[in-house]
Structures are given as structure tokens and as C-alpha cells.
């Protein structure tokens, strides 16, 4: 499929499906099964899977752009998570189940999960926290660190019990209590070099992209609103104070977009070797910071209108407030960069920046 056709088709699908009504329904706990089916129908969840493993040969950057696009529509489906799970399974040479897939958004799977031999099979016990859409997942792919290296486990409903939870955007974030016996086909070594820390960084990349998309959309909505809403006899956008705020909003959108692009490139260029984590860390931090500022300015400009359940703005801003904390908040990633800088030393700072 050609790149821009994929992007355009997906965008059309998102626009058609993820209407304000659907967003509100999803917010109140409804699973948009038909919309998901349409997304799956298009093959989007397999976008990160290599052609030889059953994918459609989508370029990685184009695949990642889908997540950004979905973010701009506040799509209440686990597209990013299913893409990541499918990629993880494909890398381990495992078959990819249909349906929405789950992953565990934790940096280290240690402590929470224990994988032990159980005759010819394996036994996995423990807890996976805040699994996106765990309640509707047809399978969950977990990466478990073993002495021998990272191992991918494929779980199916029945392997876990669900405690339902939500982030403040109303997206399911479920706790799965796991006690499963897995036959050999459901346990396999991960692709070389893939660690939980890696998967966490990939998750951070996907959230950065989704935030960048949502921020761009918020900017668009806010500029449009300022152009239309009349106060004191003039459109809001004619007031200098409003203009100054919207300029800040635009600069945050620019920074978030560029930061997410940088992370996407780092992820796309990977081939077997270790991930270039610095651009990803910078992206998650920068998008998170932009997310807060964006939400704050957009609500300030929208006034009470933006606070109503009926308005689309909060579907985006509540996601921004949630996503900035998922897969590591700003502090988590800043610390990681800061430690790397300290190690490089004063005279290593600039070379480190130009190499990022």
C-alpha cells in the first residue's frame, strides 16, 4: 500500500468512526467494537509487523504516523498497543491472534511476573498493572526477563482475571491477575536485543506520537474557536492577549511534533542493534511538557465551553493528561537523560546532543 494512501485512508476511517458520539459512549465504558473491527479490517494493527511475518510491508515511519493520526482523533481503541504486541509476537516468531491485544506498560517486568518451568510447559504468575483495554483483549503479549534473556509469553482470556480500571480519559487500564500454564507454543525468546526497557521506550514513542497528534488537533480546535467566538464585539482571536497565548500553543505543538518525529526516526532506524534511546527520552519528556501547557492554554481560551461533556476538547485534553504519565512521565525520562549527560561530562554534552 502506498504511504500516503495508507495515511489518507486511515484518517478518513478515523474521522468517520471516531465521532463525538462514539467518544462519549466510549467514555462511559462502551467498547466500540464496530469501529475496532473496521480498524482491524484495514490491517492497521499489523502495521509494525514485517512482511515476512504476516505484515503488509508498511514502512515503519508510516506505521508510526498512524498512531499520531489516531491520537489526533482521540481514538478510544488500543491501536498503538496492538501494534506493539503484534510486533513483539512477530519478533518471537509467534502467530498473531486477531482482535485487540494487550501489553504491560511497565519498564521492568521483574518482581511483578514469575515464569517457571512446569514440566514441558511453563507457568506464569503475577500481576500486570494498567494493561490498556485488558478487559477486551483477545490476547496479551508479555515480555518477561529470564536469566537466558527476554522471553515473550502469549496469554489468552482465562489466563487472567481482570480488575477494571481507567485513566482519566476513561480509557480502560486494567489490572490482570495472572496464573497461567503456557504450553511451549506460547513461550518464545524475544527478538535479539529486545528487553522490557526497550519495549518501554517503544511505548513511550507511541505515546509521544499520540500526544503530538492530539496537541496539533487541540491547536486547530482552539484557533478555530478563537476565530469564531465573539466576545466584547470581536472574535476572541483579535485580542492581543489571546493571540499571544495561541502563539505559545503553536510553539508547543511544533516542539511536540518535532520531538515525536525524532523518536519515530530512532525507532524506525533500529535494525537488530540497541535503540537510540536519547531521542525517545527527549520526545516523551518534551511531548509531556507540551501536553500540560497545551491543555492549560486550550481550556483557558475555550472558557466554560471546553469544560462540558458535550465538547470534543476534553476527549483530547484528558488523554494528554493521561498519556504524559504513561510509559514514564517527564521526570522519569529527564533523570535518564541527566544521568547520561553526567556520564558524558561537560565536554561530552554537545557531542551527545548532535548524536541524538
Amino acid at each position, binding site marked *: 500500500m502506498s504511504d500516503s494512501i495508507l495515511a489518507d485512508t486511515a484518517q478518513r476511517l478515523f474521522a468517520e468512526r471516531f465521532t463525538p458520539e462514539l467518544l462519549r459512549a466510549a467514555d462511559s465504558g462502551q467498547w466500540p467494537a464496530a469501529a475496532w473491527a473496521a480498524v482491524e479490517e484495514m490491517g492497521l494493527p499489523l502495521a509494525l509487523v514485517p512482511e515476512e511475518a504476516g505484515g503488509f510491508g508498511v514502512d515503519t515511519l508510516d506505521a508510526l504516523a498512524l498512531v499520531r493520526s489516531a491520537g489526533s482523533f482521540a481514538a478510544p481503541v488500543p491501536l498503538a498497543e496492538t501494534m506493539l504486541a503484534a510486533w513483539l509476537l512477530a519478533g518471537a516468531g509467534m502467530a498473531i491472534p486477531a482482535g485487540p491485544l494487550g501489553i504491560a506498560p511497565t519498564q521492568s517486568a521483574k518482581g511483578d511476573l514469575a515464569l517457571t518451568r512446569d514440566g514441558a510447559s511453563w507457568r506464569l504468575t503475577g500481576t500486570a498493572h494498567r494493561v490498556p483495554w485488558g478487559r477486551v483483549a483477545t490476547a496479551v503479549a508479555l515480555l518477561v526477563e529470564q536469566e537466558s534473556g527476554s522471553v515473550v509469553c502469549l496469554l489468552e482470556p482465562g489466563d487472567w482475571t481482570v480488575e477494571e480500571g481507567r485513566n482519566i480519559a476513561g480509557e480502560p487500564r486494567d489490572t490482570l491477575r495472572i496464573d497461567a500454564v503456557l504450553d511451549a507454543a506460547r513461550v518464545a525468546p524475544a527478538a535479539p536485543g529486545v528487553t522490557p526497557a526497550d519495549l518501554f521506550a517503544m511505548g513511550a514513542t507511541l505515546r509521544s506520537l499520540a500526544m503530538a497528534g492530539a496537541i496539533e488537533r487541540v491547536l486547530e480546535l482552539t484557533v478555530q474557536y478563537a476565530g469564531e467566538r465573539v466576545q466584547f464585539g470581536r472574535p476572541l482571536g483579535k485580542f492581543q492577549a489571546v493571540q499571544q497565548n495561541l502563539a505559545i500553543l503553536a510553539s508547543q505543538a511544533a516542539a511536540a511534533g518535532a520531538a515525536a518525529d525524532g523518536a519515530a526516526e530512532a525507532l524506525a532506524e533500529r535494525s537488530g542493534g540497541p535503540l537510540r534511546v536519547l531521542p525517545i527520552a527527549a520526545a516523551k519528556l518534551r511531548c509531556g511538557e507540551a501536553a*500540560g501547557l497545551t491543555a492549560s492554554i486550550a*481550556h483557558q481560551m475555550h472558557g466554560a465551553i471546553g469544560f462540558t461533556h458535550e465538547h470534543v476538547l476534553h476527549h483530547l485534553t484528558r488523554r494528554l493528561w493521561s498519556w504524559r504519565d504513561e510509559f514514564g512521565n517527564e521526570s522519569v525520562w529527564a533523570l535518564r537523560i541527566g544521568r547520561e549527560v553526567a556520564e558524558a561530562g561537560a565536554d561530552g554534552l554537545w557531542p551527545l546532543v548532535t548524536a541524538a
Partner: protein
Amino acid sequence: MPRIAFPPPPSSAATEALRAEVRDFLKTELADRPPRLRAESWNGFDAAFSRRMGARGWIAMTWPKQYGGHERSALERYVVLEETLAAGAPVAAHWIADRQSGPLLLKNGTEEQRRTILPRIAAGECTFCIGMSEPDSGSDLAAVRTRAVPVPEAEGGGWRVNGTKLWTTYAHKAQYMILFCRTDGGTEDRQGGTSQLLVDLTTPGITIRPILDLSGAHHFNEVVFEDVVLPADALIGNRGEGWTQVMSELAYERSGPERFLSSMALLIELVRALGPSPSGHAAIAVGRLTAHLIVLRRLSRSVAGMLDKGENPTLQASLVKDLGALFEQEIPEIARQLVEAEPDLESTREFSAVLAHTVMNAPAFSLRGGTREILRGIIARGLGLR
């Protein structure tokens, strides 16, 4: 440039006994109120609590005794207010009437209104709401379109009201509304021709519909008036002076503790989550917020002192509100980076739930009672710049 004086606030020594009494009361009253509910700040509604506040004499504290008040000082009222807000007590059932509607009636109401309504407010038995904003009038109140037309004496007299009010907090629980509407002229007259009317919300023709906020909670309402007929004495103060009356209400209510304590529950839970030995980083962040709080409280009490002396500290009050909203909005942004926890309204961890509540409500802190931009314009005017 006019000098912007903030005289030393009145000494609080005289009120310390009252403070202790209020703290004792709240300790018992709120013993089972979890932080996630305390985080609702002045949006928490509990009619029984309000009645008990009334029974204690802690509503209508400064009003004349003949109307159910207690003739206590503004400073005593301030102490009760800040203690209840800092503790996250559910004040919504009496708060609007105590703060805004009661004083309006006291100043501009008819003797009948004062006699019948004020004592019920003082008892914590009468909830008010304020009908201000409309679909096309947010900060620009002069753009209201709700209209009250005099009914000819021959047809029984009074006022016939048509229009729609938005964002009316707790209209669905209130007995009365103070309605801001147009009685004369049109939007081209700007502030002229607006009036305030007292509305009994059981009057036929009034429909109250919920507006859910972004967290799905129901505080706001749409209130639709369709040929609602109000008695002639529903008019509060003078016909055509609604704007002036509203402005004098607003100016005085810009600087109270409600303007910087909205995120107090989160600050408290932050201190709890960090424990007795926080990192240097966390201690610095909390120390800084505490310093800001100490200074804001001093500014606010200074304004209270000026109000008590009958001065008109409009400019000072605006400065306090602006600084206060910045402070309230900063707290969630700082807290979330210091404790590893995602915001989650339903979390089993109180910190996560309080964080979620505060993150989602914070944008409103610089909207309610006039947006930040408008407030700063007022300050600039006070500096002599407009």
C-alpha cells in the same frame, strides 16, 4: 502610578479561640471524609453539614442578628472560611448564599426578602445559585439575552422572563437563583439596562438540565426560562443597575481563601505521600509551595482587613486572585512529578484520586469569576494604563 498598598493584616490573636473551635468541629465532622472528596473543595455538597454549620452560627456570621446573622467580625468569618476550605469541607449547600446572594439581598433586597430568606440562609437551609453566563455571553456579561419584561398591572403585574442560563452551579439543588438579565435596551447598550431578579426555582416555566463537566460530574446546569412570571418585588436593587450591583459583588469576592486553597487537598496528600524524609528535591518543591501559600494568605488577609475597614481594595483583590489561581494550578503540575502515580479518579490510592480530580479541575481556576486575561486587564487599568 497609584501605590498598591497591602497594609499588615489584622492580628489573628483574637480569633485563635474560634479557630480552635472550628478545627475541633471539622475534625469530628470530616473524620470519615476521604481526601478524594475533600479535593472537591467548595464544590462538595452536603445539606446536613451546612445545617450543622448554621447551627454553630458559622454562616451569615457578619449579618445583623435581626436577619439571623451573628454580628461577628469579617475576620472571624475569614477564619471559619479558611478553616473549612483548607479542611475540604462540603460547603456548596450554603456557600454561594453566604458569600454572594445573602450580602446582595442584605444590601439591595426588600425588607420582605431579607426577613424571610436571610434567616434560612443563616440556618444553612437555603441554597442559592447564580444565573450569569449564557450561550453567547461568557466573560462578556453585557451580551446577556435573557430578558425580563414587565407584565402590565392589568394582567397581574410582575415580570415575564425568557432566556437560557448556562453553567449554573448547583441550580438542581438550589431553592433560589439570583438572575442577571436584561430589563431594558439591547446589547448595544452594553452594561445599561441590566437588572438582578430573585427567582424561586419552583416557579412554573423553569427547566433545569444537567451539564456534565469534563470528568462527567454534575455541578453545572442549563436553566431555561419560558414565560416565567415573577412577582414585581423579585427585582433586587434598582432596575437597570444590575451590572453595577454585580461588579461590586465580584470585586469583593476576588481575594478570599477560596482563591488559593482549591488544590489544598492535593498539597496535603503530596506531603503525606512524600513522608517524613522527602528527597531534597521534593522538600524544596514543597517548601516553595508552602512559602507561596504563606504569602498568599497574608495578602488575602490584608485585603480582608481593608474590606473590614470599609475600604475599596478592588485592585489588590484582583492581584490576589491572579496570584492565587497560578498557585492552585501549579500544585498539580508539581505534585505529579514528585510522586510516582498516574492520576486516576477511581484509584485505591488517595493521592492518585486527588491528583486526578485536581488536574481535571485546575483549568477552571483561572476562568471562574472572570478569566485571567480580563483580570489582568483590570489590574492594568488599576495601574493607570487604560
